[in-house]
């Protein structure tokens, strides 16, 4: 089955090519650098990674089965190769993604994708670490991956994902699907904190059932280009989705979030909070959309995008949108973009705090308001350390 899906996806990509700025989600994003990357060869020798009991290791996007030998909760985890999946619905992602040529390119190219399923009622208090190692096979490689994470009924799972690239600059084209069954909790944190000049384009689809608590938090510090698509389908009553993102941009970094939350059922809540801090010539894009379907009464939704510009040459493009087809909902959205407040700087300096320190305090304060909303305290700690080094760097 997967072969026919890959074939169709390749045909779609060949017919449509790289995304153009005529597309809404690519209006402020150039894909011209994508041409510089070629599909990764899989000829490199397999690297041996020492993993700990809380880690699941992926090497160039492919699950390192050996890492599961040490994994403390391997008895709660069922793993299959996507080639073994013959359930088309399980493989299906959002229709919006299927219209994205880069998503189709990723589908056509990934090798050895995996289906990782946490069994029913798997309650894991410790935070699982997903470590994505990337090793160079050749120059200007595009590494495509596709993995499905299934959080079964009653399970409670916390994950922090981090990329480890050792200054290896690649184009990381990552596709993920998350299925959260009834009464499950998924806390998913991402930290992109290495110093590589990576291009990263990811498509993350969350299929949410009844009474689910989902939180997706991320801190991006260093990628040269980072564009993330997040789509959440709130399909059944009583679920809650929170997305908190902090992007730190310097030099000519491009940081880009495209979030779509579909309220398809009543009594669900969603919250998007994206903050960008931009220095030098860096650029951030926020395309956030909430669609409340006709029957999704008692929806409570809010989206917020705040951008702090530290230089005259930095740019933020913000496009928060609401589409509401129900009549008993509470939805809000807002966006602000501006420099550090001079009155606040004066206030701090008037207490003896020097100009540079006052600026740092205010930058940290701006970032902390989203970091404090991260659901995983360990991601808060990682982010605060990364923020300090970013400010001082």
């Amino acid at each position, binding site marked *: 089955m997967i072969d026919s899906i890959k074939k169709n996806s390749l045909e779609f990509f060949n017919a449509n090519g790289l995304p153009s700025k005529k597309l809404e989600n690519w209006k402020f994003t150039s894909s011209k650098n994508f041409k510089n990357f070629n599909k990764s060869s899989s000829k490199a020798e397999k690297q041996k990674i020492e993993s700990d009991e809380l880690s699941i290791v992926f090497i160039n996007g492919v699950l390192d089965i050996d890492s599961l030998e040490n994994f403390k909760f391997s008895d709660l985890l069922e793993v299959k190769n996507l080639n073994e999946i013959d359930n088309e619905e399980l493989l299906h992602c959002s229709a919006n993604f299927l219209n994205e040529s880069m998503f189709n390119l990723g589908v056509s190219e990934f090798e050895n994708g995996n289906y990782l399923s946490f069994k029913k009622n798997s309650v894991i208090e410790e935070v699982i670490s997903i470590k994505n190692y990337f090793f160079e096979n050749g120059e200007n490689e595009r590494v495509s991956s596709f993995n499905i994470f299934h959080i079964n009924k009653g399970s409670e799972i916390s994950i922090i994902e981090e990329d480890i690239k050792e200054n290896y600059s690649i184009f990381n084209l990552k596709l993920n699907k998350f299925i959260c069954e009834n009464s499950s909790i998924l806390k998913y944190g991402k930290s992109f904190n290495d110093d590589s000049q990576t291009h990263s384009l990811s498509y993350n689809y969350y299929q949410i059932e009844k009474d689910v608590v989902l939180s997706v938090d991320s801190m991006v510090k260093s990628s040269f280009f980072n564009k993330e698509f997040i789509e959440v389908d709130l399909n059944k009553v009583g679920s809650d989705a929170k997305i908190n993102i902090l992007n730190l941009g310097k030099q000519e970094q491009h940081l880009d979030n495209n979030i779509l939350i579909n309220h398809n059922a009543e009594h669900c809540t969603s919250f998007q909070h994206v903050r960008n801090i931009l220095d030098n010539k860096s650029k951030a894009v926020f395309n956030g959309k909430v669609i409340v379907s006709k029957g999704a009464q008692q929806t409570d939704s809010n989206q917020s995008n705040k951008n702090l510009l530290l230089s005259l040459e930095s740019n933020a493009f913000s496009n928060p949108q609401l589409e509401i087809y129900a009549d008993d909902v509470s939805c809000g959205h807002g966006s602000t973009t501006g420099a550090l*407040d*001079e*009155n*606040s700087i*004066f*206030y*701090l*300096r*008037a*207490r*003896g*705090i*020097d*100009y540079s*320190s*006052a600026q740092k*305090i*205010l930058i*940290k*304060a*701006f*970032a*902390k*308001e989203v970091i*404090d909303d991260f659901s995983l305290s360990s991601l808060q700690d990682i982010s605060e350390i990364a923020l300090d080094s970013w400010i001082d760097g």
Partner: protein
Amino acid sequence: MIKIKNLEASIDDKTILKGIDLEIPAGEVHVIMGRNGSGKSTLANVIAGNEAYEVDGGSIAMNDTDITEMSIENRALEGIFLCFQYPVAIPGVGMAYFLRSALNAHRKHQGKDEMDALEFLNNAKAILSELGLDDSFLKRSINDGFSGGEKKKSEILQLLTINPKLAVLDETDSGLDVDALRTVAKGVNKFKNENNSVLIITHYQRLLNYIKPDVVHLMIDGKIVKSGDMSLVEKVEKDGYSWLEK
């Protein structure tokens, strides 16, 4: 303590201060009163070094050091403390972190070791208690969500923590109820001693019922036109300022 000579200042090319002469020796409390727009708050801001204002002439000296061209933070470290009329809210910066950062900046300037967290907390809690504030005040962000009274008490907490040489109170009494006014006055009275000075800018007599000034100055159109004792305050309360223009 502070000597201001023939100070002229403007903002957006509009001259506000037109030759201020003012000297406040150590141990004294001075008051400046004047109509709205007479330049009182401009004077407070210019003393504190607010860069939105341009000093066009004259000088400001603290203990014989000319601070006219000094940066905002260095003036603060030299002992100038402005109690803001409208303290800004800074979400995300905790009061405890801010207060300790400010205090330790002063201690470093004075060649002292940084105050450790425990000693700082004990000192801060003692001041909070005197101001009728809960310890949880320290966990809140700077002035974020504070009531008008809490903002002014926050300024007094900072004043007592930093213990500067000159406190400039820019309409600190505005918007306070009687209880909060008493608390603020109590804090200022606790602060003042023979080694420091206080400059109170106000429209009303009511704060001066609790803090007794040594000298009262009346300001009109960017100049101090009359100085005297507490009887000037009573005259202004009764007759306003128009008699000064005759």
